[in-house]
């Protein structure tokens, strides 16, 4: 690990940890409806929105109503985005004269952004109008992040409440998440990005002549405002095709650091919010330490593997002392790329500033594993916390089996129903991603998209469905997915990964909320110490490992051993 790599990691960790308590406390006050520093400005707007929507904020919902509201909430957003994409040629703010987006691609994109995935089977600047970007993509980034935060709040209330039939009001949670959390942070981040040189314009492409005399269209657009919510929301979909490797989307070292910090910002702070809401901040810190341990381990492996360079190129006499720079921006180097990629895959953001297809096989394995662990390594806003809490439920169950006691977690007895809901939510994602991968690698429509043969080709398909079902959205880039087969099956994976996970999570919240508090005793497993953190990490790695080991062995692991023998694909 280089000095630059270790230094960036330490700076990032220091800045992130400094935000956890203040932001965690702020989130707790926002979702409890308490007065915050922004209340004088935003409370009148909030009240007006409730009035227009017919929402009674004091009226809470049971888990089933909350889940129905969560689902119904997504329908108009998806239909609106689909309509915008199909009709963009006839709508304003289209200076580059982009045509209608094809039906299958419009469907894929609508599902992708409404589910907080941001899988992109298109290049932004060559496909979308400014209106589609602003009123479609960016709006869904706000709303999908807010819906994820709402589900997490419902689950935390489930853990915190005693004998309650309700878990909150979905519409209130979503409104507060957008108004008090996503909008203010995005405005601040957008201003910093614009200051650093990210375009914020409604103009069309600028015609330029290169030094060789060729014509070039340099795309502009409202990129700074979209980039801010892209990074904060866990959506991660780029304004430009090259995403955060594009000098207009990520122009400086400061914007790269800002991106690295924004991606885990809400996910990390939510662990503290959880601790505050259940009355013991140490419970939240334990979850965050488990998340950060997995995050740092992945970052160090990426840094070490990419920093060592490509052994085949080294054997051919190519200088590798700066590491494996294929597919990376020289501006960011191995250190700035590896940390960004680690966070892009671990936090469910899916943002990239380097081409993941060019990473060495063991690095590809790490990127896949980050997503395969159900996006609990900080994860997306809300989704990371509720994913980690699902594993906590399973971990106390495993711990209970070891010592022969009924498992408990933060004062709640974990019984058969809670375990069923947790396992449903955990297993539905690998069931979707592995089944669809298996289908795609045996039928002609799936094989037609491969950019490479052998284990690397398999990894391209596995990566695509893993990314989609875990609502990550990053891609390995070698696979041509803008085909009806991939657009439809990836949309299916994204819908499964979003809705069929959220429903059992909300059901779990409802089940927990009705329980009475269990007094802790000497036999209660402590869920704040190193033993608990080790057990939790162990359960996450073992469940993920057992589920995905065969697929990883066929893909990146096989490619690694083949590379050491001199074979490439």
């Amino acid at each position, binding site marked *: 690990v280089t000095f630059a790599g270790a230094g960036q990691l330490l700076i990032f960790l220091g800045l992130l940890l400094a935000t956890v308590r203040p932001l965690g406390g702020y989130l707790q006050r926002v979702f409890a409806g308490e007065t915050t520093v922004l209340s004088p400005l935003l409370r009148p707007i909030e009240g007006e929105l409730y009035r227009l929507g017919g929402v009674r904020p004091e009226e809470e919902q049971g888990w*089933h109503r909350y*889940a*129905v509201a969560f*689902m*119904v909430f*997504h*329908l108009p957003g*998806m*239909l609106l985005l*689909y309509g915008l994409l*199909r*009709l963009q040629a*006839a709508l304003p703010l289209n200076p580059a004269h982009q045509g*209608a987006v*094809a*039906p*299958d691609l*419009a*469907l894929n994109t*609508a*599902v992708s952004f409404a589910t907080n995935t941001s899988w992109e089977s298109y290049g932004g600047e060559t496909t979308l109008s400014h209106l589609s970007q602003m009123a479609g993509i960016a709006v869904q980034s706000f709303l999908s992040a807010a819906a994820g935060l709402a589900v997490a709040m419902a689950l935390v209330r489930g853990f915190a409440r005693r004998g309650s039939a309700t878990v909150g009001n979905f519409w209130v949670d979503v409104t507060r998440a957008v108004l008090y959390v996503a909008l203010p942070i995005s405005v601040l981040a957008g201003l910093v990005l614009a200051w650093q040189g990210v375009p914020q314009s409604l103009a069309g492409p600028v015609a330029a002549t290169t030094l060789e005399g060729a014509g070039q269209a340099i795309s502009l657009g409202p990129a700074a405002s979209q980039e801010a919510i892209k990074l904060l929301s866990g959506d991660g979909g780029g304004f430009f095709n090259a995403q955060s490797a594009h000098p207009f989307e990520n122009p400086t070292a400061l914007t790269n650091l800002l991106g690295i910090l924004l991606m885990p910002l809400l996910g990390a702070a939510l662990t503290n919010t959880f601790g505050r809401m259940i009355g013991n901040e140490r419970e939240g810190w334990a979850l965050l330490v488990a998340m950060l341990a997995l995050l740092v381990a992945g970052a160090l492996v990426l840094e070490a593997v990419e920093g060592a360079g490509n052994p085949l190129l080294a054997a051919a006499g190519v200088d590798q002392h700066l590491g494996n720079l294929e597919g990376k921006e020289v501006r960011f180097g191995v250190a700035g790329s590896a940390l960004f990629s680690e966070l892009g895959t671990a936090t469910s953001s899916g943002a990239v500033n380097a081409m993941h297809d060019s990473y060495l096989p063991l690095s590809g394995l790490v990127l896949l594993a980050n997503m395969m662990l159900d996006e609990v390594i900080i994860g997306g806003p809300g989704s990371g916390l509720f994913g980690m809490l699902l594993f906590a439920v399973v971990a106390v169950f495993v711990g209970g089996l070891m010592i022969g006691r009924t498992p408990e977690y933060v004062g709640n007895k974990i019984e058969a*129903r809670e375990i*069923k*809901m947790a396992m*449903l939510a955990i297993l539905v994602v690998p069931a979707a991603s592995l089944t669809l991968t298996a289908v795609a690698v045996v039928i002609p429509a799936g094989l037609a998209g491969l950019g490479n043969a052998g284990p690397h080709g398999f990894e391209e398909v596995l990566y695509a469905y893993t990314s989609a079902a875990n609502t990550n959205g990053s891609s390995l880039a070698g696979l041509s997915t803008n085909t009806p087969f991939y657009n*439809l099956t990836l*949309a*299916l994976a994204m*819908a499964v990964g979003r*809705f*069929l996970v959220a*429903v*059992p999570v909300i*059901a779990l919240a409802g089940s927990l909320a009705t329980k009475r508090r269990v007094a802790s005793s000497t036999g209660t497993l402590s869920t704040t110490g190193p033993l608990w953190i080790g057990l939790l990490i162990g359960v996450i790695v073992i469940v993920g490992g057992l589920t995905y080991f065969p697929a990883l062995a066929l893909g990146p692991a096989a490619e690694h051993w083949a590379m050491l023998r001199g074979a490439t694909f």
Partner: protein
Amino acid sequence: MAVPLWVGRKLLGDGAVSDALMVAFIVLAVMGPLAFADLCRRV
């Protein structure tokens, strides 16, 4: 159904049939999990 398809054909040409299918996909993708919610209630 015929009226939206006619309007769709005017605006989008022959893609209108595809649009009807894609919209049906979206509606099913969102509303289908409601059945899953009922399943969770019974488990």
